[in-house]
């Protein structure tokens, strides 16, 4: 295993090179306490919040899973995909198409949705990873658009109107129903468990040898190859895992909404999930969740007739201008505000010291 040892040091080296950059594998302040506390708060919310509020929390949680799945690509591996919505949409469509009119068991419907998304991710990943940089962005976008056209134009997938999910999936042993996702509370906690699972799964993945290899690829792929890593299988594995987790988000979204439509796969969704990452802060799992919260709430705010009055129908304008201001002013996202302020203060102190001398 000599080559492994060499490779290991190379990874450590290259991570040290970029000490100033946020590193996803590094422990964040508070460790597991912060996400665990947040999960407890969200778990307690149904006792205090209206059904509308609960629905909003559910939507945010599903988008948080979606954003976390993309974080594995963008933040951890450095692959900017502009076609991630395809996997969300395929997961959602597989759920509805697989369920039929009588409903289906959670035990196989969920794996079906995840597997469908992962299967498309294998194909798209194998092709798009032959390119890099801006090519990769365009190719992932193009393949997502292909999936969009398939569900939009074929009758089997319901065309531009989409399809309804007639019966929500259940999990039963014999005649006793253990989980019925048609039940509001059951769905709420199922989504919460899925979010916690996704968060923990990606965190553990990133702390593993696999995650360190991805970090090495992000920082300096040439060096990783020189150190003896076949980098393409690693990138493909990350792409497929990200696609599968997006499929999980799609499953939950289809069950929550009770319907799917082609817009789930549209490039607006792919752009939105990238925005969530940059709003929250790339390179941090908390950032991905925070970004999903921020983006969903901002969109809700801009579309709210009650709060913004005549501006509400023109929410795209306010959202667009907000995005421009946000990306220009806070390139490290909300989670990076602290670091950005500290850097600013350091700069100011250095300047003061120079002036004094």
């Amino acid at each position, binding site marked *: 295993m000599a080559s492994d040892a060499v490779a290991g040091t190379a990874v450590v080296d290259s991570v040290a090179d970029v000490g100033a950059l946020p590193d996803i594998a590094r422990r964040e302040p508070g460790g597991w306490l912060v996400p665990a506390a947040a999960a407890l708060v969200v778990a307690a919310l149904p006792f205090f919040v209206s059904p509308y509020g609960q629905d909003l929390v559910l939507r945010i949680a599903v988008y948080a899973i979606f954003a976390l799945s993309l974080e594995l690509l*963008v933040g951890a591996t450095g692959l*900017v995909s*502009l076609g991630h919505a395809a996997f969300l949409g395929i997961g959602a469509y597989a759920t509805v198409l697989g369920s039929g009119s009588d409903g289906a068991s959670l035990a196989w419907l969920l794996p079906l949705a995840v597997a469908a998304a992962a299967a498309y991710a294998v194909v798209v990943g194998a*092709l*798009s990873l*032959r*390119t890099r*940089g*801006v*090519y990769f*962005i*365009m*190719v992932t*976008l*193009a*393949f997502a*658009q*292909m999936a969009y*056209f*398939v569900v*939009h*134009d*074929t*009758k089997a997938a319901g065309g531009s109107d989409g399809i309804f999910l007639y019966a929500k999936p259940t999990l039963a042993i014999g005649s006793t129903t253990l989980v019925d996702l048609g039940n509001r509370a059951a769905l709420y906690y199922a989504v919460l468990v899925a979010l916690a699972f996704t968060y923990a799964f990606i965190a553990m993945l990133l702390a593993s040898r696999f995650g360190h290899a991805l970090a090495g690829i992000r920082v300096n792929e040439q060096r990783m190859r020189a150190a003896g890593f076949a980098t393409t299988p690693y990138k493909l594995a990350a792409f497929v895992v990200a696609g599968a987790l997006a499929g999980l988000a799609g499953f939950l979204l289809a069950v929550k909404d009770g319907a799917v439509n082609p817009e789930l796969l549209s*490039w607006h969704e792919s*752009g939105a999930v*990238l*925005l969530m990452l*940059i709003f929250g802060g*790339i390179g941090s799992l908390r950032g991905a969740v925070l970004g999903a919260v921020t983006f969903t709430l901002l969109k809700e705010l801009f579309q709210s007739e009650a709060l913004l009055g005549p501006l509400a129908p*023109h929410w*795209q*304008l306010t*959202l*667009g*201008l907000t*995005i*421009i201001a946000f*990306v*220009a002013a806070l*390139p490290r996202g909300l989670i990076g505000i602290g670091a950005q302020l500290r850097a600013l203060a350091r700069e100011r102190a250095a300047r003061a010291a120079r002036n004094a001398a």
Partner: protein
Amino acid sequence: MDLATFLVQCLNAVQYGLLLFLVASGLTLIFGIMGVINLAHGSFYMLGAYLAFALAPWFGDWFVTRLVAGVALAAIFGYLLEWAFFSFLYERDHLQQVLLTYALILVFEELRSILVGNDVHGVPAPSWLGGGFRLGSLMEYPWYRVFASAACLVVALALYAVVQKTRLGMMIRAGASNRDMVRGLGVDIRRLYRIVFAGGVALAALAGMIAAPLSSVYPNMGASVLIICFVVVVIGGIGSITGALIASLLVGFVDTFGKVFFAEWSGVGIYLLMAIVLIWRPEGLMKRGF
């Protein structure tokens, strides 16, 4: 499929491909020279189409004058936009470029909806290009489509001449292959950027103006063209104008004949073409050679 139908479809494919080329060539130049990925490029196509719609009552049958006026307006708009917005993108990474230009699309679409509304509008073709010529016993091919192909072809040749034969073209080619060296040789790179960007906007807007009488003008018309142009650029090779021309025509043929033979699955054709090119030549048909 009889011969006349086949010929009509071929003409349609060429016409569509040439129209795509006008949009894609600007996109590939802007990326090749400035390194900016511009999602809002499709919005310039939409801008052109809506300019054609807005200018139509003013110019009537003076169609060519209308095109020239629209292209001039679009070029001025592009010049100002580069100065006010895009010049701040060059130092940022691709992800930020994607998001900032994505936000720009939202802004453009909403401004379009405020200014013109969300209805579909037809744009009249000039009366002197009405009618068509007979092809076989049943088919008639409209003169306007012939004009559209011819106009695109003229612009494509002019573009080729500018890039290959002029001093500006030399700087563009040099800028695409080595930006820093061009800067080091004392070329005012910021002015070059501004000109190339304005040119790209003008080309996309011209395509939109020519397409408007064929497709009418409608919301979000820029987005679909943009993604097809990405496919064209990936197939042709980034920064290559010849590649963009070959790829545009290929995409035009695959899309047109896909619609004839596989109605329901026709949307998939050009993406399969892209997949084949990616397997065969991941860097595009023409790798960096104009």
